[in-house]
């Protein structure tokens, strides 16, 4: 019997599921190996048991916690898909004060039905077996993780920084443009796509394991930057690491 996989989403932009949809021909090949049994955005079908659940988005309300727990009970393996599911992503950018202020401005009310909880990454609610980082995820990394799971191997993520991929591709260094780049401490696997696009690394894939901070401090010093400036940038996608 084919492995039964499902896609689910909570608070997020559905861009990670879309990245899976965009695998095109690879998607056709995947469909020879697995059966997609649930994918609300594209399917009306529902099932009771799944082998692998891929889940996008953060958890913000009690009914979402309940739905996530049900998915966990139905699934053998649960994979967090993308930054919002892995650590909260940009959902956490708004401080609680700013949200309360905005709610009062828009609705002139703090009524109970207008309240949401602080967005949570999935692992704060259920056991997450694996995570695929990024905002959005990288399609080929999704394929690699799925392949490993189908072969019953542990999926592994790159243990080096985006800076390495960037140097290998010989892209110009963002620091030379006077920009703050998070490439030296962010986990590789995106092929430095933002730097190729003329942007800097904004750290959407989270910190690499054991980041080498000493050389990074030296880069910062050379460019007259402070640790605080880096942290401010890092918080765009990674405030969730602090909660």
């Amino acid at each position, binding site marked *: 019997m084919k492995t039964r996989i499902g896609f689910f989403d*909570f*608070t*997020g*932009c*559905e*861009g*990670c*599921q*879309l*990245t899976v*949809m*965009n695998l*095109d*021909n690879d*998607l*056709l090949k995947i*469909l020879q190996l697995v059966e*997609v049994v649930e*994918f*609300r*955005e*594209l*399917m*009306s*079908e529902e099932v009771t048991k799944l082998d692998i659940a891929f889940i996008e988005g953060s958890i*913000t*309300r009690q*009914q*979402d916690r309940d739905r996530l727990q049900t998915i966990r009970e139905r699934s053998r393996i649960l994979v967090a898909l993308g930054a919002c599911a892995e650590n909260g*992503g*940009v*959902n956490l*950018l*708004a*401080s609680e004060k*700013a*949200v309360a*202020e*905005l*709610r009062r401005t*828009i*609705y002139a009310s703090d009524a109970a*039905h*207008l309240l*949401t909880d602080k967005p949570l990454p999935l692992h704060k609610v259920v056991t997450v077996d694996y995570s695929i980082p990024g*905002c*959005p995820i990288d399609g080929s990394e999704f394929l690699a993780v799925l392949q490993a799971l189908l072969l019953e191997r542990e999926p592994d993520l790159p243990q080096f920084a985006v800076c390495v991929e960037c140097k290998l591709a010989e892209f110009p260094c963002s620091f030379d*443009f006077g920009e703050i780049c998070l490439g030296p401490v962010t986990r590789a696997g995106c092929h430095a*796509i*933002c730097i*190729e*696009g*003329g*942007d800097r690394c*904004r750290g959407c894939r989270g910190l690499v394991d054991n980041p080498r901070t000493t050389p990074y401090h030296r880069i910062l010093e050379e460019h007259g930057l402070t640790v605080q400036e880096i942290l401010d940038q890092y918080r*765009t996608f990674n405030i969730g690491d602090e909660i």
Partner: protein
Amino acid sequence: MSKKIKLNHLTRIEGHAHLIIDKKAGKIESCRLEVVESPRFFEALLKGRHFSDIAPIVARVCGVCSISHTMASLMATEKALGIEPDPRAQLLRRLLSQGEILQSHLLQLYFMAAPDYLGIPSIFQLLNQRSDLFSRALRLRRTANRICEVVGGRAVHPVTTTLGGFSALPEASDLKQLRQELVDTLPDLEATVELFADFNFPNFERTAEQVCLDQSGQYPLHAERVISSCGIKQSVAQFKSTIDEYIVPHSTAKMARTERGHYCVGPLARVKNSFEHLSPMARKVADALQMNAATSNPFHGLKARLIEVIHFIEEAIHAIDALLLHSFASARSTAMPKGGGEGIAAVEAPRGLLFHSYSYDQNGLLESADCIIPTAQNLASIEADITTLLPHLLDLPDEQIKQRLEALIRAYDPCLSCATHQLQIAIKEES
């Protein structure tokens, strides 16, 4: 006998919503489209951020419309800060927006809407029996994605877009190859038109004001003026100032209206109001689909989407020709102005008119932001359509009523990730 028809977590749409209909003694008591997508308060997320961070963050409102949000955001910030983008960069932006509309429309037509007319719960059912149809859908989407990759650097959440233009430009060789891929879609487009021309669209008419942008001599995408089927011609800022976003008792989802009442935005509005700017091939396809600018059938939203697919493929080929003739510089090192200001911009997103307006302080930090989303502008019309259609369906079995209503909602292609970027929705508990 009182009965409740409830469709929880409507499928094959972008985002989460329930549809609840209360029937009593064969009559409709009430009908509500309850959007249950969780709110995200994006305006609060942006507050205090530097202008160079706004577009990449606000793109995360929606994966399906990330390019439209990026465009509206960059254009609003450029207006606020007095940055003038290069005219050739504007042409490249137009190509990128075409790519996104193609991505979104093709996904909606084949994966979300077509199953309603083929009588199947999802297109995955066709994987084996109709592999030609399935692979055609993937091939067409591949080409749409390629436009976004070549121009925007990535299919979802672009990376080359920046204030003043683009931080990296496509190579001429990539544009040439892309042009060839676009030309090669023609047989697949023909087969797609044949497929949809065979579908049996329900007969249903409801007149509504149709609103879209007005771009001199072109099919509208990024423009300064708004037109409507009621004869309104206003600047983007003027029109936005007449939009009243309001809260309804059955949910706290905001809806939009003007003093003339509810209105519709999206492909149907664009095709109706800008029919004369459609490409010759797109107009021929309109004939083949038996659709003209006079239609007031909301189910024809699907036909309008397919007509736009044809139009934008053709226009993208011409845009590449124009881009290949002129080279220009990337905007990576463009000097950024000091000081604050206010700016408003509108673009035609796949689902219709999208407004972003910002104000920045003297240090270039965002003070306030306001985004008005196509689906929020359409929600009231979707409900009005359901209320009008429902009495004609009451003799049908519940299952068929549900199918028909779901098809109607899908004809609007609602995008609820977008609509709830700031909304808080009341949940009606199952009783």
